[in-house]
């Protein structure tokens, strides 16, 4: 524990700005992964333990797309859509079979896919660390703010995440699709009795949630080194985020993600070895005090 360094940072504006921007991009990426996870839980009532692997898949698909097209926009879209398609396949042929089963069976199917995807990535892209490199148009001098340094790409990333948050909120609360999804989440048998195909809604939500994880992976590609197994830590962190924010709540995921992002960036100065410990303490505290999370509904038990 190095509280002096942490205190030093809090007294310097440049350090605060730099660390906050780092925390925000960590939070932004985490939000997109966790939003998918929480959406799938909220509607389907299942925990997708393979969500971290979808993030990894997004990053690797984007890497290949970027090497072919040399365009970051295309690689991001291909990454998100590719993972969305894969999630659809995963849901239709595997996850769908264990909806009724208890959580252990879901865990098992996901565990199998974590193992398979890690190995598949190893076979296709190799087991060594890979990096995509910063796309040319982001290679600009960083923005200086109060003595702190913010790379241009960070601003872009935070912007996309904010946009996704708004789009998600808009779709869920203002459109007909959102209404249907919320209905399916609240009362699936009533929804299907009204003539809506819940099986299709489930598939759509799962694919969309997966695509969000893929998008996060694709966006993270320039700033993260890639290796098989990179999904593990993301999975654990997005769990913490969804539990803190409230399982099933997208707004909660945003709060939780920003909180974890800031803990991670400031923690790297003050207590680099105990960051995970702090995150788990936060999660345990929430579970003890309010198991449904900051914004979760009390009803689902």
């Amino acid at each position, binding site marked *: 524990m190095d509280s002096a360094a942490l205190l030093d940072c809090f007294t310097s504006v440049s350090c605060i700005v730099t660390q906050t921007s780092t925390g925000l991009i960590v939070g932004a990426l985490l939000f997109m992964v966790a939003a998918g996870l929480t959406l799938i839980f909220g509607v389907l009532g299942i*925990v997708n333990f393979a969500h971290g692997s979808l993030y990894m898949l997004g990053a690797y698909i984007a890497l290949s797309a970027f090497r072919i097209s040399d365009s970051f926009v295309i690689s991001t879209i291909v990454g998100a859509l590719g993972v969305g398609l894969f999630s659809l396949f995963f849901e239709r042929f*595997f996850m769908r*079979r*264990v909806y009724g*089963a*208890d*959580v*252990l*069976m879901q*865990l*098992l*199917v996901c*565990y*199998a*896919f*974590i*193992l*398979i995807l*890690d*190995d*598949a990535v*190893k*076979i296709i892209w190799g087991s060594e660390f890979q990096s995509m490199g910063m796309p040319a148009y982001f290679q600009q001098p960083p923005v200086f703010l109060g003595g702190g340094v913010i790379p241009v790409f960070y601003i872009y990333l935070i912007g996309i995440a904010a946009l996704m948050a708004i789009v998600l909120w808009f779709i869920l609360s203002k459109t007909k699709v959102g209404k249907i999804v919320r209905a399916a989440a609240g009362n699936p048998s009533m929804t299907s009795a009204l003539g809506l195909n819940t099986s299709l809604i489930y598939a759509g939500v799962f694919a969309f949630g997966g695509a969000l994880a893929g998008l996060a992976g694709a966006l993270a590609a320039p700033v993260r080194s890639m290796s098989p197994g990179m999904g593990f830590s993301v999975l*654990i962190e997005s*769990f*913490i985020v969804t*539990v803190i924010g409230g*399982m099933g709540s997208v707004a909660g995921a945003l709060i939780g993600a920003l909180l974890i992002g800031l803990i991670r960036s400031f923690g790297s100065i003050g*207590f680099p*070895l*105990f960051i*995970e*410990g702090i995150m*788990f*303490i936060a*999660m*345990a505290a929430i*579970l*003890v005090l309010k*198991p449904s999370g900051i914004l979760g509904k009390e009803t689902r*038990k």
Partner: protein
Amino acid sequence: MSAGSFLREAIIAGIALCVLIAVPFVTDSSAAIDFGIRLAAFAVFATSLNMLVGFGGMVSFGHALYFGAGAYSFGLIMQHFAMPIPLAFVLAVGFCATVALIVGAICVRLSEIYFAFLTLAFQMLFHSIIISWTSFTGGDQGLMGGLPRPPFLGLDLVDPTDLYWFAVIVGVASLLLMRYILQSPFGYSLRMVRDNAERAKFLGINVWRIKLYAFIMAGCFGGVGGIIMALLVSGAFPEFTYWTMSGEAVFMVLMGGINTFIGPVLGAALLLGFNDVITRVTDHHGLALGAIVLLFALVFKHGIADFLAQGWQKIRNKGEHA
């Protein structure tokens, strides 16, 4: 359980123990001895988890906490104090019981998925403490320098064969003890709490207390598995408390079957066997293991032991009708 049926099971366990003890006289393959020790550790570990999952209906994702707590506390006691192994063993199990009491008191009132996550959180917290408290636990390097293993009762645990005998004796004794606990009135109260907590409450059972006792006992036996492992590797490593270790235990339980007492033992043997074979024949360990896991989850739907038990039941029913 009536005294008679327990006697029968004790005799079965005794015969199994005799067979296991005889193994080193038949083969001198070090791989077999090593496998036997690991199996003893994981059979106890997986069965202790099944006390919670199968008999208590509490799906814990953080059971490796006790495996690691047993291994680390035993290792640290042996390194810091010159103590006979049995005494250190008892102290380490006592440490696990204390940890399980604290964690369990907080966790057991939560329902299903939240219980799973909170147990996971405590396990990862423990893992973080081990990683960051480098001066005491050796951090991510693990507990290095080897454990002193003074001989006792004619057993010198530095010798693999003696260690094997120690491991199977402790393993079989632990399994028998768990069986006894689960067949006792306490065990049946636990099953009732799993099936219908409300009804159990009406009948005057203190649900919270029953669950907590089960949690503490599962923690103790999980620690026993960790101690055997610590003796085998002569140290302790942070991986023991990592969530993949909990995942493996869950998988062993499911592979073997949660409704049969002996299921997790079978599951542990299967998974350890698979791991050994797969790493030998292919580089694509994950792909092969993943396919096997999928097979179990989607095709068998139950563990091997449950599968066999059901088949046996069917055959017997047919016989009765005929």
